[in-house]
């Protein structure tokens, strides 16, 4: 199960990530918050390494949230 262990966390350049992605998502990270944001990103990267260490069946990528299409009643369909 343990493949790719700590690859993301070790390779992560938090400053580069903040600089590149903050503009992309339109959320500024002011300098005074950068150190703590970087710390939280580093923790997240360790978590990402853990979820990537799981060997999932390569044929499937089943996400936990299930979307169930809402069923319309006959009256609603005829009214539309």
């Amino acid at each position, binding site marked *: 199960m343990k493949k790719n262990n700590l690859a993301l966390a070790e390779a992560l350049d938090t400053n580069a990530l903040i600089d590149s992605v903050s503009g992309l*998502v339109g959320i500024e990270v002011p300098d005074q918050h950068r150190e703590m*944001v970087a710390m*939280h990103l580093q*923790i997240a990267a360790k978590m*990402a390494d853990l979820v990537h260490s799981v060997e999932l069946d390569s044929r499937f990528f089943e996400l*936990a*949230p299930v979307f169930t299409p809402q069923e319309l009643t006959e009256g609603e369909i005829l009214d539309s």
Partner: protein
Amino acid sequence: MIAKADSLQVEEFATAARISRDIRARKYAVVDLVAATLERAERLNPELNAYSCLLRDRAMRRATQLDQILTAGGDPGPLVGVPFGVKNLFDIQGQVTLAGSKINRDLSVSAKDALLVERLESAGAILIGALSMGEYAYDFTGENEHYGACRNPWDLQRMSGGSSSGSGSATAAGIAPLSLGSDTNGSIRVPSSLCGLFGLKPTYGRLPRTGTYPFCDSLDHLGPLARSARDLALCFDVLQGYDSNDPACADKPVLTTTQQLQQGVEGLRFGVAGGYFDTANFPVAAAAVQQVASAVGAGKILDMQGTSEGRAAAYLITNAESSALHRDHLIERLEDFDSDTRDRFLAGSLQPASWYLRAQAVRRWYQEQVLEEFKSVDIIIAPATPCVAPKIGSKWLEINGEQVPLRPNLGLFTQPFSAIGLPVCTVPLWLDEGGGMPIGVQLVAPPWREDLCLRVAYWLEKQGIADSRRPSL
């Protein structure tokens, strides 16, 4: 003859079941009980900071109505006269839903109550106030920069736990016989553990979240905190019912748990969570788990494989979904956040989508691993928190020799079970090792079997293993 409020001192820590029974017997009037509860709450709240708002006029009006119904021979429901509070992310008609934030002060007042508030009041209970919480539920401590720390009734210098901090503090202090909280990663179970209460996080999708301010849609649960297992069951039974307004709510029949409480533990198979849940470095948590395991005769240690990965999945999902929810706030009102949540929301907003998607796939995988464990056991016993309530202001926790941030890690043992939506009842224990402070143990049941964990909680209470006690205030 209906007693006056000044004779109600003995009722300060009464359970909901006792209150309801006494009111039905007309030992006292609902208005007298509610007035006494409000007076005590007004006296204690300046120190505890458990209530963010008390609803005296509304509660007294409702109490008067209930007395009139009782006098006329009517039956207002199984929770008649029971005062309760709700975490301030539940909508209350005429109030702003703060969700522990400064930013939400600018929202309009709510047009109606949250659905679970309506259901409790339909059962005869009386909403008396909104309860403090960590900002936007992103918290396990009970601390809040905008509104101050919510304090633990067992030691005012210690954390109440969060994010349902006011729910834990008020119910432990005897100023809310019942309270409702929310639990995304442990926010009912952590304050239950630190304040010495029974807490129920039902199965994901069991209770509709209609009319509550969200945190993380994939993981948000609602549930009760109480002073007894029976109160949890009474409350849970009336809270259930499908509602299509919450897309996550499952269309399941109501599971009546109260009548099953006395079935005991005979025939149930127990296992103790090992591996990730090992408590070798947490002596109080270890002693608590051992005491429960010995009482029910649990000898089997479960590997709980995949838990680190499952917990990591919950962590990443929380980061991503909560940050997406608050994107506009992060752009427009960044400095109005509590600094402890702001930096985590900012980091979450920068997290790659591939991490989130992988986490959602691993979450399903982790569920399969734990469901395997339920082939050999009916209840998994696990610690609720690694330690008793830390001192307010503590920032770090030592885990396996490593200093880690306290705020996310008080939920170290709760987060894996909410990640896969399992029903969990937390029971309070009082051990010499705890130095006068309580600690909780989680009783984890298979999906949709809240009846099992409530049965065990009730049995432990009857055996004197777990109980809610009365702090001196």
